[in-house]
């Protein structure tokens, strides 16, 4: 038995968990921004930026998932051993869980940012920067997953 099952499980976990985080974050922010747009539709551009900020987690998860597919024999590479498969599954947990929770948290921050910049246009850049502060934790999770996933095919396990 090779590690294909676990490798695919890892790809799924990374994509789905981080995706849930982003979906919740973007969803909440989109609701708030539509409330603002109903009052003043000229703010669409700014609202769009703030709404999309929690969307990166999903992308990171997707990239890790994709890189697993590329290196585990589905879209190229060779089938992993059982230990490698397990390693893929574990490595993807970093961005999966990190993306899940940071996406939700960033979504909440984005909602407040939308409220702030709805009140005063000039505070938009402050709102934007504050919302991106959350992102660093998703980034760190992503880097950990990424480095692991890239190295796992070379590991002799």
């Amino acid at each position, binding site marked *: 038995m090779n590690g294909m099952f676990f490798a695919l499980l890892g790809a799924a976990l990374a994509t789905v968990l981080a995706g849930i985080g982003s979906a919740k974050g973007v969803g909440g922010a989109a609701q708030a921004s539509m409330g603002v747009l109903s009052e003043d539709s000229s703010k669409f551009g700014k609202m*769009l*930026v703030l709404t*999309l*900020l929690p*969307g*990166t987690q999903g*992308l*990171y998860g997707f*990239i890790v998932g*994709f*890189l697993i597919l590329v290196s585990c024999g589905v*879209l190229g590479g060779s089938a992993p051993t059982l230990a490698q498969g397990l390693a893929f599954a574990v490595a993807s947990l970093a961005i999966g869980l990190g993306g899940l929770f940071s996406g939700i948290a960033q979504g909440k921050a984005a909602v407040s940012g939308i409220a702030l910049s709805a009140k005063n246009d000039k505070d*938009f*850049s402050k709102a*934007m*920067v504050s919302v*991106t*502060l959350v*992102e*660093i934790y998703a*980034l*760190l999770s*992503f*880097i950990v997953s*990424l*480095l692991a996933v*890239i190295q796992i095919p070379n590991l002799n396990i």
Partner: protein
Amino acid sequence: MKTVRIIALRKDRKRLLEHLQDNGLIQIRSDVETRQGFGRVDMSSQLHVFERNVALTEQALKILDEESPEKSGLLSSFKGRRKIDPDDLGEIAAKSQQVIADCNRLVELDKKCTDNAAELIRIRTQLSQLEAWEKLDIPLNTTSTKSTSVFVGTLPSPYTEKELNEAIAAENPKLEFAAELIHSEPTQSCIVLFSPASQKTMSEDALRALGFARPMGATSKVPKVKSEKLREKREKLLESTEKAREEIASFADRREAIKETQDYFRIRADKYEVINRLDHSRHVFIIEGYVPEEDCEKLEELCRHAAPCTVEFGEAGDDAPVKLKNNKFAEPAQGILTMYSAPGKTDIDPTPLLAFFFYFFFGMMFSDAGYGLLMVIATGLMIKLFKPDKKMRNNLKLFQYCGISTTLWGLVFGSIFGDAPAALYNFFTDSKITMAQLLPWPTLDPQKDALLVMVLSIAFGLIHILVGMGCKFYACLKQKDYAGAFFDTGLWMLLLVGIAVLAAGMFFNPVLMTVGAVIAIACAVGLVLTQGRAKKGIIGKAIGGLASLYDITSYISDLLSYTRLLALGLTTGVMAQVFNMLATMMGRSVAGFIALVIIFIIGHLINIGLNALGSYVHTMRLQYVEMFSKFYEGGGKEFEPFSLNGNYIKIQEDN
């Protein structure tokens, strides 16, 4: 920035102010106290008229937009304001009364439409109430004839004719009556009851027991006639609304004139608002303002030319506004700077540094030669075709420079629409070539060499932070705060360099490691010795010094933050690769080619949208949070000259 005081005769006020407004060289101060022997002139009534006209034209435009929306393309927001000659302003002024009359007519028509709509709703309610009574052929408010009493009204439950008669008979067997069911529905029955006038009270009691109620709004007209009349009225209202709407739409060709007139009144309002703030004596008036240093001579020349007056210049204080002045390379980034805050009194203007790092980091994150070229071409075309206003042009320029940097980074990372050249080559020839093999120059693949790119990112971050601290160092020197410069900033910079050398030594050369460690430790000792200097007592100083070393954590988290350069660069590349893979999946058939083109275009457009936004936001964050926090105070005010300032027309180029 200089302060300027212009003293001139009151009779020249109009002429002088118009010249100043035309040229837009001076910002009129509003914070000057009234002098002894001088007073202010109250222009608020005129000002009020102009502002009301502006509001009126705004309302008229809104009405016009609802009725016949302005035809505007997706890209029209890039379009610049229409440029007109100063002499045209007089023509606009001459026509303004006609335009205001048009606007009043538009508002009137709009009010008519709203009133009609309200009336239509009222009619609809009345009609629906009457509907149940259509079959009744006597007026609703009939209560009696000579010998009978008549009851027209509703009972709160459904009946048939037979049930109705039985129910009334059951209430009072002695009652003589004739009941007629007009209409019956699940919630109510409409009935008419006739009884002898002598039995009026009896029938009233019987009906009350059944829950009888007379209809609301009963009139002396037969229901059918009444609803006929209401329908006629409705037709008329609809027709009048239609007419009003047509008339509103017929004003569509006046839109430009309305816009110009609005700007004309806005400009006049600006002028009167300035007059309100000036000191007047019986014969002279005084203008106090700020003027950029390079414009002093021009202003003096202008004033002398316009009217007899004295012009005095003085040194501006700390609260003077700032006018940023940068070369072509850095100017587009001014918008990014002012979005944060204009430079404060002790700040140096960091725009050139900001511009360089902005382009550099944006390129590294977006990093695709294909996308970069598209950006350069698209922004170039927009600038050429739309002739946008200064601010928009600068924004487009910003993205053009970012596009150049994106192209260069794309070449470094070997990414042209992702791996499109290799993917398409493989698609048509069934080979298995990679981008690295295809490109004649050595590339750095962030997917394979992620660690190396990460180290590079952090190294760039270190440079970025050091540059920020260098600015602080320079600013401290300029203010002669030597302790601040050398102890608070210099030592930290050296410490960071030492750690960097140490880290480099770990990979390359043990000697470097020792050198780095020595520098870092020496700086740490220096920091412990100096950072507590504001505290009292030896112990306080020692604790203050040691505690300052804790700041190292904030530097580490700042540096780690630059890993986003890798993460976003990778996101662009991988997403592009995914779309290329999807596009070439369908095989070499006709359907396959069509799918290839469609998926390729849509996929890359999505990728550009998502990742350009991400790169923009994250580059901005790196500037604001990581770099500006090291030295930039902000809090300054921008120079806002007194000028011909319109929303739709421009008379001269803005500064």
